[in-house]
């Protein structure tokens, strides 16, 4: 179970001597998340929707141990984010901002082999897992240097990379952002299959059709607050996303 309780995040500005060294996005504190709570259970696909700047990517980065929350707790299978970040990292597969985060000069196989070892597999297991995943995602026959992949192939490779250590939790931040409708539908089918195999999936998107058709629950986030958490059927997601503080 992924449990997010009362998470708030305020990005501080650089102050004092630090201003000489660095620039932050703003010179005043920026509140990105306010008291956000939600859970994702095994076998569940939870869609996270909200306008740009709602705080979706901030929430993903906090759960992925890349950002420190200002307040609140995150636990994954009972492990706390602050006290056991390594345990959380072992349990989470991550896709950030579509299909970024693969090495264009390497083949899909070599990408998966590399990320497998970084995730803790030994070299032989990482190679075996890379072959399995290329088969599973229909890339085995077309594997080549990734800069020659289509957008759809890149998304599948990014999903395969997230699965390389067979984690029970998937955080997918807009994996379908650069896909056409057919590619998007294909990706949603893949995500459904992964959840049916027992994984918990938190999935951010701007496409409301994906949420209605592919998610068990939807969480609407605007201005850093949860406005709705429930079944997508019947919910007026457009109206919810237009809510402001």
């Amino acid at each position, binding site marked *: 179970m992924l449990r997010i309780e009362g998470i708030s995040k305020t*990005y*501080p500005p*650089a102050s004092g001597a*630090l201003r000489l*060294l*660095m620039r*932050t*996005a703003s010179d005043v504190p920026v509140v990105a998340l306010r008291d956000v709570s939600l859970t994702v259970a095994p076998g569940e696909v939870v869609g996270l929707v909200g306008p740009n700047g709602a705080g979706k990517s*901030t929430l993903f*980065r906090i759960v*992925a*141990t*890349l*950002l*420190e929350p200002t307040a609140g707790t995150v636990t994954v299978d009972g492990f706390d984010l602050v006290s056991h970040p*390594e345990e959380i*990292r*072992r349990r*989470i597969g*991550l896709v*950030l*901002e579509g299909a*970024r*985060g*693969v*090495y*264009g*000069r*390497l083949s899909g196989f*070599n990408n998966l*082999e*590399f*990320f497998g*070892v*970084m*995730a*803790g597999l*030994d*070299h032989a297991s*990482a190679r075996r897992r890379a072959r399995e995943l290329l088969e599973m995602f229909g890339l085995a026959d077309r594997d080549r*240097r990734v800069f020659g992949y289509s957008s759809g192939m890149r998304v599948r490779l990014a999903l395969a*990379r997230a699965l390389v250590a067979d984690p029970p939790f998937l955080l997918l931040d807009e994996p379908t952002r650069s896909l056409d409708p057919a590619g998007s539908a294909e990706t949603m089918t893949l995500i459904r299959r992964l959840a049916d195999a027992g994984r918990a999936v938190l999935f951010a998107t701007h496409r409301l059709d994906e949420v209605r058709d592919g998610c068990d629950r939807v969480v609407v986030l605007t201005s850093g607050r949860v406005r709705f958490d429930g079944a997508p059927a019947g919910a007026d997601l457009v109206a919810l996303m237009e809510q402001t503080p």
Partner: protein
Amino acid sequence: MTSFRQAAAVFRRDARIQLSYPFQMVSQVTGPMLMVFSFFFIGRLVGDSPALARYEGGYFPFVVVGLVVVRLADSALSAFTAGIRAEQASGTLELILASPTRLSRLFAGWMAWPLTVAGVQAGILFVASVVVAGGAFDLAAIPAAVPAFVLTVGSFAAIGLVSGAFVVVTKRGDPFGPLVMAATNLVAGALFPVEILPGWLQALARAFPAFYGFNAMRAVLLGGESFLSTLDELAVLAVFDLALVAAGLWLVGRALTLARVTGTLATG
């Protein structure tokens, strides 16, 4: 075992990426050979300077020792910051930091390929110099120079960690790397003996670990001295290395924590 495996995976990845640019490899190999000839003729111009009296063979073998070390030192110094920037550019920095990989394994991996290439370049440079300069070098003394060589390159790698900590925060503008390399060439004795510098610059030279490394290596390779005679320099280098590694790791940890609070980890 895991630490070696992950560092080896980064090395393999970097090797595959860099070898996919074949012409780059050609220029990396030919560059050092051309440098040898340039300095060989500068050596002829310099002739037998009194400042070089305690070294066998005059200026050319003297500067070759400096060039070999500088080649590896430059790589060691920039490997960490180059590793961060490359991961940022490919969008993989956050993914790697969100994996259970320890930072120390990542650092070791980021250094492995650049140091291998620099080692090959330095080897080519040295072999070409031996061919050109004949018997100036005491080749049997090479094993005695290895500890000073390793500690000197290690000190640059440790300074590279300090630079990397700043780059995590500042993104661009490494405050140490260019300064340290310029000081190494100008003050620490890479290209000419420090004895020809004004007294205050000679005193400043002692603040740089490379000064002790150059002295120890030249003493055994060109001065006919024994390994035992370099123990003082080795001790100073070891202290520099320990202090710089500790400072570097601490600063990198602090920089990453700051980036995790301000949300600037993956910004370019």
